[in-house]
Structures are given as structure tokens and as C-alpha cells.
């Protein structure tokens, strides 16, 4: 198995709520010192993030009381509510037409941006990004699939297979080792190596 792909899978596992690399990663890191080091570094990062001491010290929030809040709120009420008349003029002649133009542009172009893949899955309350979704996010799925499939007739089948993979390790069930290596090479060529 390609080390670049293993490292990507480690980062993907880390981005899920449950940091549990699959069996393939676990098997690989037993025999690959470089990937094991990468995995242990990622574990250290996760432990660092989880161990940060975010907490409230005794008495730290005593100042944030109902009495203080109402008193500050009463002070702020004295601020003028009306906007400056010059701003009103600018708003009327510049911002309002500009906003209207922006809204028209949005109405025209937004539907195109909203054509995104349907994903999202829950597993013990954790959400995962599908491998296909990652590729989609990075805007490289078409190139990767084309490079991997080798011909246009296979692209549709490959897209279906990738779309069905809600977790990175599921990809291993639908692609053989040569295909995974080809996929990884294609990703590295387009996106650069993870490690």
C-alpha cells in the first residue's frame, strides 16, 4: 500500500470525531516506520487538542452577573439609535443599488454553486466525510476519476463506487491495490503528496 494514501487516511480518520484508523492502516503502520511515526505524531496532536485546559476557574465569571449585565445594557441604551444622515444618503444611492445588483447576480449564479453531492452519515453520533466528498471538496474528483478509470466508459461506474464510500476504508473494499495506487498517484499529481 502506498504510504501517501495511508497518511491521507490517517488525517481523514483524525478529522472524524472518532480517531480510529481502520485495519489496513493499523496493519501498514506495524511494518512501516515512516507511517507509524506519522500516525504517532497525529495521535500526539489529537492528545494535545483534547488536553487543552479550557475551564472556568473559581470566581472567574463572577463579574458576569445579571446585575452587571442589566447595568451595562442600560448604559448602552443611551447610545443614539439613528444612523448618520450622510450614511443614509450613501445607503440610499450607493449601497441599496449595489446590494440589489449583488442579489441579482447571486440569484443567477447560486444554483450552480449549490449543486453539491449529498453526503453525511452518522456512526455513533460521529459524522464522516466520504472519500468522494473529500475529492469533491478539493475539486479534483473528475480528474482523479478520469485518470484512474482510464477511459470514459468506466468513469460512471467509478463515480458510483466512490460515491457509495462513506468512509475512507470502504474504498478498499471496492478498489484493488493497483487501482488504489493509481488513485493515490493521481491525487499526488494533482494535489501534492501529504507527507
Amino acid at each position, binding site marked *: 500500500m502506498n504510504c501517501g494514501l495511508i497518511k491521507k487516511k490517517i*488525517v481523514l480518520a*483524525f*478529522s472524524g*470525531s472518532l480517531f480510529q484508523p481502520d485495519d489496513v492502516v493499523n496493519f501498514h503502520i506495524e511494518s512501516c516506520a515512516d507511517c507509524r*511515526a506519522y500516525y504517532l*505524531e*497525529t495521535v*500526539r*496532536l489529537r492528545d*494535545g*487538542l483534547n*488536553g*487543552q*485546559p*479550557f*475551564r*472556568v476557574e473559581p470566581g*472567574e*465569571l463572577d*463579574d*458576569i*452577573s*445579571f446585575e*452587571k*449585565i*442589566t447595568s*451595562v*445594557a442600560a448604559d*448602552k*441604551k443611551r447610545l443614539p439609535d439613528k444612523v448618520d444622515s450622510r450614511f443614509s444618503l450613501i445607503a440610499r444611492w450607493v449601497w441599496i443599488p449595489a446590494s440589489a445588483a449583488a442579489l441579482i447576480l447571486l440569484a443567477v449564479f447560486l444554483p450552480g454553486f*449549490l449543486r*453539491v*453531492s449529498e*453526503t*453525511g452519515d452518522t456512526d455513533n*453520533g460521529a*459524522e464522516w*466525510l466520504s472519500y468522494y*466528498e*473529500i475529492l469533491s*471538496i478539493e475539486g479534483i474528483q473528475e480528474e482523479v476519476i478520469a485518470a484512474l478509470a482510464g477511459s470514459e466508459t468506466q468513469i460512471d461506474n467509478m463515480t458510483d463506487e466512490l460515491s457509495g464510500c462513506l468512509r475512507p476504508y470502504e474504498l478498499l473494499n471496492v478498489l484493488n491495490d493497483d487501482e488504489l495506487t493509481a488513485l493515490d498517484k493521481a491525487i499526488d499529481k494533482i494535489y501534492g503528496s501529504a507527507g
Partner: protein
Amino acid sequence: MNDEVFEKAVREFRERIYLMILKYVRNKEDARDLTQDTFVRAYRSRGSFRGDSSIYTWLFRIAVNLALNFKSRNRLSSHISIEDSPEIYHNENPTEGLEKAELHGRIDMAVGEMPKRQKMIFVLRYYEGLPFAGIAESLGITESAAKANYHHAVVRLREKLGPYLKGEI
């Protein structure tokens, strides 16, 4: 919402709001100011609260918006230091304690350097464990945008801290 209900909400939710903001701004003083601002804004607009969402959700959204628009006056100070939490860093091997403190400082810096919205998404997802749909709703973005930003935040964090984790610096 009457004053009695609001007072109860202050007592009940100020810690949760403060901790969420602290994870975003990574500075205790700023987090306290923003927490107070959150409740002040909420108090001033309590008449518009119709109960469509829970009081906490309403406060949470105000806090998120304030945090996103906040410019720190305390950029140089970290949210936490060895002096702030001696028991966390000193109740173990001194070398390990220092290493942990340094890692936390570097994480603070790396998270602090994320673009604002990406940082907020990372905080809400990683630390607060919010579902992407909830994050998207709170920030007024699509669920896909929330997922994309989160993924980029994780990759970026791993890359930024890579040399340190490898022991190269």
C-alpha cells in the same frame, strides 16, 4: 422573556458560552468581555426572543456572531499559561509538563492563524461536537461549506504542526 428567566439563563449558561468563546479567541480576558457582551446584547433584544429555539441556542448564536466580528486587543497573550494552570503542567514529570505546555501553545498559535470562519467551524465541530447541519445553520452557510472548511482546517493544522510534531523544530 422576563427578568427572572433571563437571570436564570445567565447563571445557567454563562460558563458554556464562555468556554465556547474561549476556545475561539484563546484569551481569557477577551472571552470574558465577549461573554458579557453576549448577555448584554441578549438582554437588550430579549423582547424579540419568541422561543422558536432554546434560550441556549439563541445565546449561542449571538455569541458566535460577536466572536466572528471580534478583533482582539490582547493578541500577544495566550489563553492559558503554565502559571494559570500549574496543576495541569506541574503534576507530572517537569520535562513532560513543559512539552505539553509548548504543544498547547503551538496549537493555540496554529488555530489562531486559521481564517475566522474556518476557525469557528473547527471549534464548533472539534471541541463542541456540533453536527455540520447545526454549524451550517448557525453560520448561515451550506452544510457542504461547513464540511469543506472543517476538512481544510484539519489538514492545515496537521501540516502546520508537522515539523514540530516530528521534532524538527
